[in-house]
């Protein structure tokens, strides 16, 4: 009996040796994308717009951070505030100049907004390419030192991600649950017409959703840029990854975004470990596809009400 227990313990320790690093591999991109996908979900649930250009907001914030810090040599705190502000302004500008205008002319259909948002995505990607060039921008200093915790080696920035992202998600959830504006946002997300009747300006709430969502995207964008470096082609990649993680978890649900991201990263990490890195995209898409076959609204998604 004792031998049984001991060998199990040894096996457990050996697994931990491998499992903990894999876990860190899951948490780092998983938590980052949870914030990105979560804010994307928020925007969708309040405005019913599939704001795919959200991915562009993330990367633009990263480039704004690069410009402020590396090109103009601003202090770190100023660069962070600047990047977040740029992200927020970008999101709000896209909303007011494009989506709201489309609403006025009555052309806010799924196809219409999809064309608009993808166009903005491509325009932003090419603008970034034209301004910053196609070479990779690194932030090696900010990645920080490597810290060893047993079998896990994480850089300072990776620790930052693992601490800040959950905090951001908690703040977002509490904000939505407890504050007046949060409740108003949820009201509009739930039923726009009834919310208007009760006196909530859905137009203002939509702008608020874009503002808040883009702020979170901006903060995630800074951490993303430091961890993964910046290349203009990341705009499309980040958007696709964000989108698939969101629909896996169920669009319209922030908890779904978190679960979708973590689950996808788990599949990615396990595929990369036991198989080969080249297959990672394939398996994660396959997995998402299979889940959607069984549960089309996503893991935590609500059954769609007709619009």
């Amino acid at each position, binding site marked *: 009996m004792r031998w049984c227990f001991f060998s199990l313990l040894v096996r457990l320790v050996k697994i931990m040796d491998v499992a903990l690093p*894999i876990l860190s591999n899951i948490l780092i991109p998983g938590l980052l994308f949870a914030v990105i996908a979560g804010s994307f979900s928020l925007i969708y649930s309040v405005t019913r717009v599939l704001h795919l250009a959200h991915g562009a907001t993330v990367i633009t914030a990263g480039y704004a951070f690069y410009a402020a810090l590396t090109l103009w040599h601003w202090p770190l705190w100023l660069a962070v505030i600047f990047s977040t502000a740029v992200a927020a302004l970008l999101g709000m500008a896209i909303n007011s100049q494009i989506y709201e205008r489309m609403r006025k002319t009555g052309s806010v259909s799924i196809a219409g907004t999809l064309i608009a948002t993808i166009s903005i995505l491509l325009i932003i990607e090419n603008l970034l390419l034209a301004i910053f060039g*196609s070479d990779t921008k690194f932030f*090696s200093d900010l990645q920080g030192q490597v810290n060893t915790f047993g079998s896990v080696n994480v850089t300072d920035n990776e620790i930052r991600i693992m601490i800040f992202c959950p905090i951001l998600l908690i703040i977002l959830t509490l904000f939505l649950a407890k504050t007046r504006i949060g409740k108003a946002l949820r009201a509009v997300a739930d039923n726009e017409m009834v919310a208007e009747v009760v006196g909530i300006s859905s137009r203002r709430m939509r702008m608020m959703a874009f503002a808040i969502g883009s702020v979170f995207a901006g903060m995630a964008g800074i951490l993303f840029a430091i961890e993964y470096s910046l290349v203009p082609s990341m705009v499309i990649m980040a958007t696709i990854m964000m989108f698939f993680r969101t629909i896996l978890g169920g669009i319209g649900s922030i908890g779904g975004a978190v679960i979708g991201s973590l689950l996808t990263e788990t599949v990615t990490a396990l595929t990369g470990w036991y198989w080969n890195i080249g297959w990672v995209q394939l398996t994660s898409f396959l997995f998402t596809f299979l889940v959607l076959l069984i549960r089309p609204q996503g893991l935590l998604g609500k059954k769609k009400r007709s619009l």
Partner: protein
Amino acid sequence: MCMKNNAIWWVIGIIIVIGLGYLVFNQPNKQGTTSPQPVANEPAAPAPAPVADNTIMIGWMGPLTGDAASIGVPIQKASQLAVDEINAAGGIGGKQIKLVSEDSKCDGKEGSTAGQKLVSVNHAKFVVGGVCSGETLGAAPIFNENKVIDISPSASSPDISTKGGAYVFRTYPSDAMAGAVAAGYAMQSLKAKTAAIISENTDYAQGLHKVFKANFEAAGGKILVDEVYDTGTTNFRTQALKFKNAKVDVIYIVPQSPPPGVAIVKSLKDQKIASKIISSEVLMSDDIGKQNASTVEGITGTIAYMDDKDPVATKFMSAYKAKYHEELAWPIFQAGAYTDVYLIKDMIEKNGMDTEKIQAALTNLTGWSGGAMNNVNLDENGDIKWSDFSVKQFKAGKLESIGVFKFKP
């Protein structure tokens, strides 16, 4: 209220558009204190030469933007130096030469577009390039179809020997040698029995990957982990963890350009890996050592051997430094690009503009000296005959040679 809101947005919008236009068309010097990229040089503009009817167009093809530009731009400048020197000395047969440079972004598709443009629009009958194997292979069919002589100073994929075609030549040895030398170094000098390979998904890197694997396994070694990553990957954490877990003796890294290479090494060092790291020539530059001294410390790599004490080489290097006020980042590639222009000049002088005749003359060329190289011999595939490879190591940010290996076929 609505109107005022709108006006404000318009004003902001116009300011942003003007600002963006300024940024786009007035590139600031892209210096980065935290970026490991070298200062983005502008490729050399051709020295003012009258574009008359009696101008000989020589094409140049390579990455002038993107991650591989740190290799492509210095190489272009070396070719431009040769062109300027020749023009100053009276040109070729009284005619001035013009170097038309195309950015092929180290990519096969872009290579074929660039090659097409050089042939159809610029009517170049001679091209120096590509720098990368992918773009060279991409443009090769066009050069062969149009009987355009192409000499590459740095493309090293073994495929170019067979798939390059009759009109593609190179003054840099095939990776069939480099991979064997790296494997030999790993087995004999490092006494490695197990290895892991990580290579980029490009023609060049996969060619080298196959050669190293074949040679290492033929000598009795075992490849425990073999990872291929796509161009554009920037995070290698998972691969680094896998390598660490496999506890291999040696890790062979084959990036296509410096940035992913440096990122891979950083990930490996972050995970405190004990294995020895061998790199392909993509990281073997003093420039990279300067910017990433602590990251690349201790890494070894192979690169074709260049005797930089040779008088023709030193003459070229001094001329380069005098003209561009910078050290040579890739001496061997730059010497090759410089030499290729002189080789073309010599061929035109001996054979006129008849590229068919020149193709025959270049095939199995023996004992040619000129430019920055001596005793250039090309074989029946258009490959330069070569046998000496350096193994170099980064020590305190500088590359030091730790041995010269002879390749024995």
